[in-house]
């Protein structure tokens, strides 16, 4: 394979992306797929808000409404927020730590394709007899009683995409432990790398309980096992425990990387070292640990008893302490900084009050007696949208602007970016702020309509108007992307001029081997140190130019995932006695997967080398 970039045809480009093991291209795949699912989930959200715009509305039927809310939540958490975060992790983390790629490039690609096929499988339920309808939490008593195949699509689809997530998490753990450049000690890692590390550890510990729970669910529905059926000695509450032992850490899997992204943005645009770096690291780890000790705060009303409720209430409130530390550190980073209000910084500034509002309602809900009032009301809906939209989605939009030049060597339009922010931010608060009051006034969550004249009409209408403002914001962002792509102006290295970390030190477009020479890291904010010392190249090198070993592209991850996708259909239709083809399909699917795995094991794939001479000839190579 040659390193000289040739202009490729369309088909060749597609094939390149289907087989790529390059973290930068996998980042783009995650970005595209995550955006697609974000739009799907967004359309579902708009349908929900249209239905609830006025009392006694019949825009959608009750059954369809249940399918829409279930798919909205599931899609947004598993198929939009997580993959979009993986997009930025893949784009930035290997570069931040001075690595040529992740530790297992093949597994990186496998993780992506498993997620994508799982997501497609789940969404095909819309066309194959109805989507799941028991909420994203899929509580067992409800989901075991659900007719049709919706819940089976949920369980099997999440099982496949969950395997992809687990693989991606393990990959980042190994990458960050083993692939750091010389001098990149743990306490010199940029905060986005740190939060990726802790979030990956949470993935490692949190996804297995979900896998177990989903398998129990699959067995109960497909083979009449009785894990959750109390009539036959099972226990429906066990599902709730397994789900939330996964589910609460999951919210931190999402929000910690968002914290990391904002930490980078604050430091960059306040043009100041992040305040309290070591306390930020400590707080991140502490949140990770406490995140596993609090799951039952989702189950206060189950009847666990006052002792259990009290313990989990106190543990939950404790999380507010490290979270508060982070907020103060961000404020003190901005304090006295030389602030430049770019689009990412605007999002970051909007994030602080929004996320704090969500955190405060969280601490309110942590008080078990009060939660008896708040539980399953619109107050809960307001809370988790304040943390998820006000924290994670704002972080994703901010980083889309911030990292766009890193990923595509183009700069999104700043003016349009700020207009996008205004629409989205106002729309967000308009949609969700009033829902606090709806909840306190007694409006339950997950209802398909409500009776007029209870004082809920106005607030619901305001909420729907807000949702449309957010939709305008999202459309503007898409327009921005299209305009930028058509203009196609190269942004060059360090486009924000204030980059502090290694990813900005690399020439643009980023060479496919990332670093011609592995950098030597001489402190926190490596690139900043070099810049301040007048080093034009932005890096000190740890090695002379020498051959670089690279992995080959591979189509096998796609095939492994495709096999599981096919097998899932066999498993799903196995319950229908008239579908005799289900077992053969199951076997064929598994055969594809295992054949692909065996090919991978038996065929030696040693990769290739980029030779020293070639590297020296590369433009920019002047050593």
């Amino acid at each position, binding site marked *: 394979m040659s390193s000289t970039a040739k202009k490729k045809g369309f088909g060749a480009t597609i094939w390149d992306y289907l087989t790529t093991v390059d973290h930068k291209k996998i980042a783009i795949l995650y970005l595209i797929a995550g955006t697609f699912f974000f739009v799907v989930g967004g359309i579902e959200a708009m349908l929900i808000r249209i239905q609830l715009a006025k009392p006694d509305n019949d825009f959608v039927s009750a059954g369809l409404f249940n399918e829409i809310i279930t798919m909205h939540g599931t899609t947004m958490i598993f198929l939009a927020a997580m993959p979009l975060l993986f997009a930025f992790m893949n784009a930035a983390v290997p570069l931040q730590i001075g690595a040529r790629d992740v530790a297992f490039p093949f597994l990186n690609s496998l993780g992506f394709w498993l997620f994508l096929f799982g997501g497609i499988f789940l969404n095909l339920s819309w066309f194959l007899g109805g989507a799941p309808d028991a909420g994203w939490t899929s509580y067992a008593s409800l989901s075991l009683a659900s007719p049709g195949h919706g819940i089976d699509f949920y369980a099997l689809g999440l099982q496949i995409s969950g395997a992809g997530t687990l693989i991606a998490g393990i990959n980042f753990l190994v990458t960050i*432990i083993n692939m750091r450049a010389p001098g990149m000690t743990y306490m010199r890692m940029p905060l986005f790398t740190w939060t990726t590390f802790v979030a990956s*550890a949470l993935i*490692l*510990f949190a996804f297995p*309980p979900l896998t177990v729970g989903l398998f129990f669910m699959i067995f109960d529905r497909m083979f009449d096992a009785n894990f959750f059926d109390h009539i036959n000695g099972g*226990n429906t*509450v*066990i599902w709730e*425990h397994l789900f939330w*032992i996964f589910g609460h850490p999951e919210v931190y899997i999402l929000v910690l990387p968002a914290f990391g992204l904002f930490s980078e943005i604050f430091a960059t645009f306040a043009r100041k070292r992040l305040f309290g770096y070591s306390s930020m690291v400590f707080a991140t780890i502490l949140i990770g*640990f406490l995140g*596993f*000790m609090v799951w*039952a705060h989702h189950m206060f009303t189950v009847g*666990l*008893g006052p002792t*259990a409720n009290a313990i989990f209430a106190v543990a939950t409130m404790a999380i507010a302490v490290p979270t508060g530390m982070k907020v103060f550190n961000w404020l003190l980073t901005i304090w006295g900084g030389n602030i430049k209000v770019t689009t990412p910084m605007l999002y970051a500034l909007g994030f602080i009050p929004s996320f704090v509002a969500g955190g405060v309602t969280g601490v309110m809900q942590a008080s078990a007696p009060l939660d008896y009032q708040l539980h399953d009301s619109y107050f809960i809906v307001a809370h988790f949208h304040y943390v998820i939209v006000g924290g994670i989605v704002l972080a994703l939009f901010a980083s889309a602007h911030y990292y766009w030049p890193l990923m595509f060597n183009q700069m999104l339009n700043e003016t349009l970016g700020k207009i996008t922010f205004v629409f989205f931010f106002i729309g967000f608060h308009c949609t969700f702020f009033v829902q606090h009051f709806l909840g306190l006034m007694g409006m339950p969550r997950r209802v398909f309509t409500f009776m007029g004249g209870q004082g809920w009409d106005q607030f619901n209408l305001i909420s729907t108007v807000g949702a449309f403002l957010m939709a305008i914001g999202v459309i503007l962002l898409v327009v921005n992307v299209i305009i930028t792509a058509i203009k196609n102006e190269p942004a060059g290295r360090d486009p924000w001029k204030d980059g502090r970390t290694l990813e900005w030190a690399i020439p643009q477009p980023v060479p496919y081997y990332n670093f011609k020479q592995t950098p030597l890291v001489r402190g926190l904010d490596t690139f900043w140190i070099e810049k301040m010392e007048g080093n034009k190249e932005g890096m000190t090198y740890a*090695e002379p130019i*020498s*051959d*670089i*070993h690279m992995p080959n592209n591979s189509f096998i991850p796609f095939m492994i995932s495709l096999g599981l996708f096919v097998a899932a259909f066999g498993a799903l239709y196995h319950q229908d006695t008239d579908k005799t083809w289900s077992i053969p399909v199951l076997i064929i699917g598994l055969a594809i997967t295992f054949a692909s795995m065996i090919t991978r094991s038996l065929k030696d794939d040693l990769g290739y*080398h980029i030779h020293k001479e070639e590297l020296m000839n590369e433009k920019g190579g002047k050593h």
Partner: protein
Amino acid sequence: MSHDVEARTRSKHEYEYARKRANQGMRNQVTVFAIMIFLTFIAFAAVQAGMSAYLVAPLILLFAAVQVALQLYYFMHWSEKGHGMAQFFMYSAAFIAFTMILAFVTIIWW
């Protein structure tokens, strides 16, 4: 290969040091292996001797815990340098699994 090949021979002292360490490692592994066999033997003997289950069960659990620790520290080299991360993750996992089990036995099953 990412770097140019560099050939290097070990000095006599280095060689002897490495040998001594390997010997020490071997001795530790054999000793630990013997201890593990011995513990297993006692466990079987306790059952055979027909002692009370209230004595035998905790005894076996204790021996199991000791054997897991020996396995990790000697056969999987935790007692040597450079295994800090693995230890940290294993202890974290054990801690989290413990809280889960504690919760299950206290608020779900009994």
